[in-house]
Structures are given as C-alpha cells and as structure tokens.
C-alpha cells in the first residue's frame, strides 16, 4: 500500500492555509456530526446496539477462518467463485485476469476503499482497461486525478465551484459545453454521462460493506443506486473487499445496517441496500452470469492476535473522521493514506508499516471523541498509543523527544531533582516574562509560542510555597 505520510506536517500546514478547503470542511459539523447525534438520539437502543455490534464483530474476527470458509462454500455453491489475495499485487492480478477473461475494455466501479487501497484504477489503465467510477464523488475525483479525502465522502474537500470547473473541463467531449452552477443540474449531467457508461461496461466492480457467511452474500449500501447498476448490467460482477468484512448471519448484518448509516451520515437507512448473492439464476431476468469475490488480506491477518486486532471490527462508517478535531481542520489528504483520520492512524501503519507512517498515530490530541462515536467501540486512542509504543521501542520516535522523555523520567524518579528542576524552571520562566507573560521561548518552547503566549508562574512552585507556609506534608 502506497503511503505519502512523511510530509504530513507540511501538508497539514498547507491545508490549514487553504481557504477553499477550510470552507469545504465546515460541512462536516452540520452534515455529519449533528446528523449522527440526531439519529442516535432518536433510537433508544442505539448504545445497546453498539455493544451488540462490537460483540458480533469480535466474535467473527475470533472465528474468522471458519466464517471465511463458510462464506466461500456458499458462494461456490451458488455458482460464484472466491479468490484469495494475500496482498495488493495478487488482488490486482486476479481482477485483471477476470477482466481479460471477460474480454473487458471498460469496467464500471461503485465506490470501494479496498480498490483505492490496492490502487486498482492505475493498474487497469496500464493494462488497457478503462475503469469508470460511478459514485458521483469518486467520479469527480477520478476526473481530477485525485485520491478520496474521506472514506465515505470522497470529495468532502471540494467546493461546488471546483466541481463545476471540473465538469466544464471534462464534459464537452460528451456534448455538454455549459458551465453549470446549480447542484441538481450538475448531478443530472453526470448521471446522463454515467448512464451511457453503465450500459456499455463489460465488467462491474463493487466493494462490500458486509459479507454474510451464512448466505454467501456481498452487501453494499449506497445513496445513488450506482452499485446496483454496476453489479447488474455487465455480464461479470467482481466484489473486491477485505477479509474482515464478514458477519456470520443475515440477522447480524441487519444490526450492522442499522448502525452504519446512522453513524456515517445520520441516515436511518441508506437509499439503497443491495445483497449480491451469486450469479444470475435461470429464472432471473437480469444480473451477471459470472460472479467473483476477491478477498484481500494485505496485512489484515497479521493484526490478529496483536494489540491491533480490534481494528478489524471497523465498518468504515467514517464517524471517527467526522468527529476528529485534527481531521476536521486539515482534511484527509494531509494524512497521505487512503485511510485518513483516527481509523487510518491505526490501520495505515498496520498495512504499510510504522516506519513510513510515524506521524499518523502521533497526530492526535487523544481527545477520545473517535472512540466515543465508534459504532463498534474500537479503542482508537489506545491503539494509537500502542503504535507510539512500537515507535519508541524501535527508536523511531524523534531523538529530541526521546531525550526529553528520558530526562523527564529521571527527574520524576527523584523528588530532590524534581524540586530543583521545578525551582529552576519557575525562576527562568518568571525571569524571561514581561509583566507576567512570555511571548517567545526558545527550543521546544518555540512550538508553544509560535501559536500562543504563556503566562509565567505567579511564584515558586506550589510544593515549595506549601512547605514554607507550614502546610501538612
């Protein structure tokens, strides 16, 4: 998995200074945060459902091999085929082979983060197959040659004007020359183009929000209905998804389907929920004659049995992104991973290695709001802390910080040294202050004063003053 997380600090700074992005990010609060709160409040059982969903996913992960086999057996019995991909390369090769077998020249795709993870589109293009994203957001970023900045709202970073410009630039070849400014007109134009592409596609590729072991179904939720057209019109349907998407039963799936949209967009239910269960049957009027499920590992099974196993419960609702004060201020691209925000801060290092992704689990104030809203109660801050522990053990923590931590541990271990340090620090801070305030500090302190002032201590340390006043110790 390709990541570009090394330049996180620079990208975050640029994002903070990008007025268009900042304006776009304001939609998160109303569109997602408030909507989720309202939806959750409307459902008295919401908290109990979260507990149940956590337990379902934990149980599934604990017995994953069994459920995967059950799923494969059911898909096979239906006449479909399950393919196992150890990594991104294998997954891409499997998809390409199926496409070639189908003689495919164009492939329609509904939104799938796993195909973003394995970078399927550039690979298909290199091999002469044109992928066409059919989710409106994904369609827009495909035109713009960008990556999604949010796992459920890929164009959250864009303004309406930017989308208008993008359509105006790319749509003349379809006979649309006018620059549209009304949202519904823009949607209508994109839809009319996509309709043509749907009809002509040779293969349809979807992701899956859930896989149901007992039925062999792949379940996809959308608000645009594009997954249904992607899966049903071409003769071949390929589902590409991760091994952790399994749930044992349809009933478990229904529980998840009640939680997912409420957590994601605050909807009680999405406009479309599709169950894809094997290829077209004899009596079916439409549907693919060839049905494939590509199950990707790509580092997931390595998380099992580790302190990151609970991350495999994730149902990709995006609630942790929406409620993260860091994500809300810098957007998704700064993270340099298709999985941004808190879930990405845990998942990306698991998939791509902590060496290249060190900023991700560190760029959190540990405010805990992500864990508070996670529908399957993943302890995200705790797992970010585990990544920080791994970094510290492997000496990946920046040297200055390491020294500081060592020094602080030594100081705190000895009350005498601690008191001397507090006394010195107090004196120095009061000395450099002007009228009780400090405007500039050197070294690590400059990071503080780059943003804000510091009020100097009013006097000696509390413990020293307490002792002097004869307080009980």
């Amino acid at each position, binding site marked *: 998995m390709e990541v570009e997380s090394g330049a996180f*600090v620079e990208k*975050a*700074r640029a994002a*903070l200074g990008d007025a268009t992005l900042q304006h776009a990010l304001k939609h998160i*609060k109303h569109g997602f945060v408030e909507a989720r709160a309202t939806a959750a409040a409307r459902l008295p059982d919401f908290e109990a459902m979260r507990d149940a969903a956590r337990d379902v996913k934990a149980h599934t992960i604990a017995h994953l091999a069994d459920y995967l086999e059950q799923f494969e057996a059911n898909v096979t019995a239906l006449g479909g085929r399950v393919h196992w991909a150890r990594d991104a390369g294998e997954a891409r090769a499997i998809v390409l082979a199926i496409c070639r077998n189908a003689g495919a020249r164009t492939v329609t795709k509904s939104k799938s983060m796993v195909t973003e993870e394995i970078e399927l589109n550039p690979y298909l293009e290199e091999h002469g197959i044109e992928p066409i994203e059919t989710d409106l957001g994904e369609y827009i970023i495909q035109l713009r040659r960008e990556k999604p900045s949010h796992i459920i709202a890929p164009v959250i970073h864009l303004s309406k004007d930017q989308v208008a410009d993008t359509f105006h630039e790319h749509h003349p070849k379809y006979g649309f020359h006018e620059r549209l400014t009304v949202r519904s007109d823009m949607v209508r134009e994109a839809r009319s183009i996509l309709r043509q592409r749907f009809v002509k596609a040779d293969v349809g590729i979807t992701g899956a929000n859930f896989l149901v072991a007992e039925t062999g179904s792949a379940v996809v939720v959308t608000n645009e209905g594009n997954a249904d057209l992607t899966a049903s019109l071409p003769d071949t349907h390929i589902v590409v998804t991760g091994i952790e998407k399994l749930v044992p039963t349809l009933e478990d799936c229904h529980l998840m389907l009640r939680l997912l949209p409420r957590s994601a967009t605050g909807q009680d239910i999405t406009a479309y929920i599709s169950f894809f269960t094997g290829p077209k049957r004899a009596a079916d009027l439409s549907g693919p004659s060839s049905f494939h499920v590509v199950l990707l590992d790509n580092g997931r099974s390595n998380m099992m049995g580790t302190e990151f196993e609970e991350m495999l419960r994730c149902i990709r609702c995006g609630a942790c992104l929406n409620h993260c*004060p*860091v994500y809300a*201020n*810098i957007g998704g691209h700064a993270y340099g991973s298709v999985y941004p925000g808190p879930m990405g801060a845990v998942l990306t290092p698991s998939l791509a290695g902590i060496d290249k992704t060190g900023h991700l689990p*560190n*760029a*959190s*104030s*540990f*405010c*805990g*709001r992500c*864990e508070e809203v996670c529908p399957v109660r993943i302890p995200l801050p705790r797992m970010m*802390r585990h*990544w*920080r*522990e*791994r*970094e*510290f053990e492997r000496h990946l923590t920046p040297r200055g*910080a390491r020294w500081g*931590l*060592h020094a*602080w*541990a030594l*100081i*705190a*271990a000895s*009350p005498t040294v*601690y008191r001397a340090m*507090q006394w010195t*620090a*107090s004196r120095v801070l009061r000395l450099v202050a002007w009228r009780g305030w400090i405007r500039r500090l050197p070294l*690590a*302190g400059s*990071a*503080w004063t*780059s*943003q*804000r*002032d*510091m*009020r100097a*201590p*009013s*006097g*000696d*340390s*509390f*413990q020293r*003053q*307490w002792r002097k006043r004869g*307080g*009980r*110790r």
Partner: protein
Amino acid sequence: MPPVEKPSKPKAEAALFVTCLVDLMRPEVGFAAASLIEAAGFDVVVPKWQTCCGQPNYNSGDKRAARSMAERTIEVLEPYAHVVVPSGSCAGMIKLHYPTLFDEADALFGKARALADKTEELTVFLARHGYTPSVPLRATRVAYHDSCSGLRELGIRDQPRALLRKLPGLKLLELAEPEVCCGFGGTFCVKYPDISGRMAANKTADIAATGADTVAMGDVGCLLNIEGKLRRDGSDIRACHVAELLAGTLETRHGS
C-alpha cells in the same frame, strides 16, 4: 476561608496530588484546591515525595518509564484514604491507565486498583462531599470548558457546572461545541503546533461567542493553552481553573 470543622470529631485526611503542571505553572490552583478540600471537611496533606504521574511518557509510548513513574506514585499515595487531583487528565491517568500498566498477577496491579478506587478529580470530590460557597463573587459571566480526559474518561460534565451554579451572581454559559478539544493534548501541542494552534483558535472563538468574561476549566493543560491563545489574540476574557472561582481566589490573582 471560615472553618467548617466540627471540633468534636477528628477530620479525615485527604492527600492532594497537585500534578506537576499545577505545581510549576499555577501554584495558586493548588492553594485553591487545598482550601476547597479543607472546606469540604478534610485535612489536606500534600505528600512530599510526589512528582509527575507519568502521563507524558505513557502517551508518548515510553511505557517502561511510565510504569516506574506509576509505581512511585502508587507508593507515595498508598497511605492515604482519599486522593484528590485538580486535573481530569492526571486523575484519568491514575484511575484508568495505571491498572493497565501492570500484569494482573503483579502485586502492583492490586495496589494500582486500590489507588484508582480512592482517587477523585477535584470537582467530583467536591460534588460528593458537599461544597458551600463562602466568598461573595463579583457578578460574572462564566463559560465552562470541558477538558477531554475529564469529560470522556471520567464522565465529568455535571459536577463542575453544579458547583459553579452555587456561586451567587454567576451566570453559567455553554459553548456551542463543548465536546471539541482545545488543542492542548499534552505533547501534541508542541509536536503539531500549527494544528494545535488552529484548534485553540476555534476554541477561543467559541468562548468569545458566548459573551463570557471568564472561562473556567478543570485542567491546567487546557488553561495554559486557552489563556495563552486569548492573550495572543488580544482578548480580555480571563481564563481560570474552576477551583479558583469556587475558592474565590480569582479576584486577588488578577488583582484589578
């Protein structure tokens, strides 16, 4: 502060774990906390070997140092029946995280659990043991800022608000987004200053929009961040620890 003790009965002892940040940066918060604990009917002891709870190391991945700092703190606080901490974040460290640092078979696990059980954040302690305002307050419009650890780890939401409402003349105001982090985040604020600074700016804008003249909170980390940002931006809103308002020591500090 008028004494509330009943001379017939010896008072119970409460240890004040003052936290390194209060100790160094805001000694007046330590005194305010001590006077409040006393007013609640306890004898305040400040265990003299206390230093830092270890949270900076713990949250930075230095688990070994965090464990030995926890071990020290557990020993230092072992003799006391009550431990009071004027910080949601340090109290959360002791109550929630200390027990996770030791194997359940380890004797220290039991000790960590015992310390966790008897440790309380200041406003939780005061709300439980009773608090009567003893100082008349100049009429003040106060916004309350929830610190993340206190709010989410310890469920501190109503206690400080209920205590503040007892102050005559105080009008309590709510932020539009009380659940959003102020951007302090321990070492986060110096590791990612640009992001932290933006979060602080959002927070101070929210505070200003309430029309408050004072913003009170339960953690000195947030306090340093918010008051520093207010000052940098030329705001005259004063920021304080909730203990300073409750103990009535704020007016003297600002010495107007």
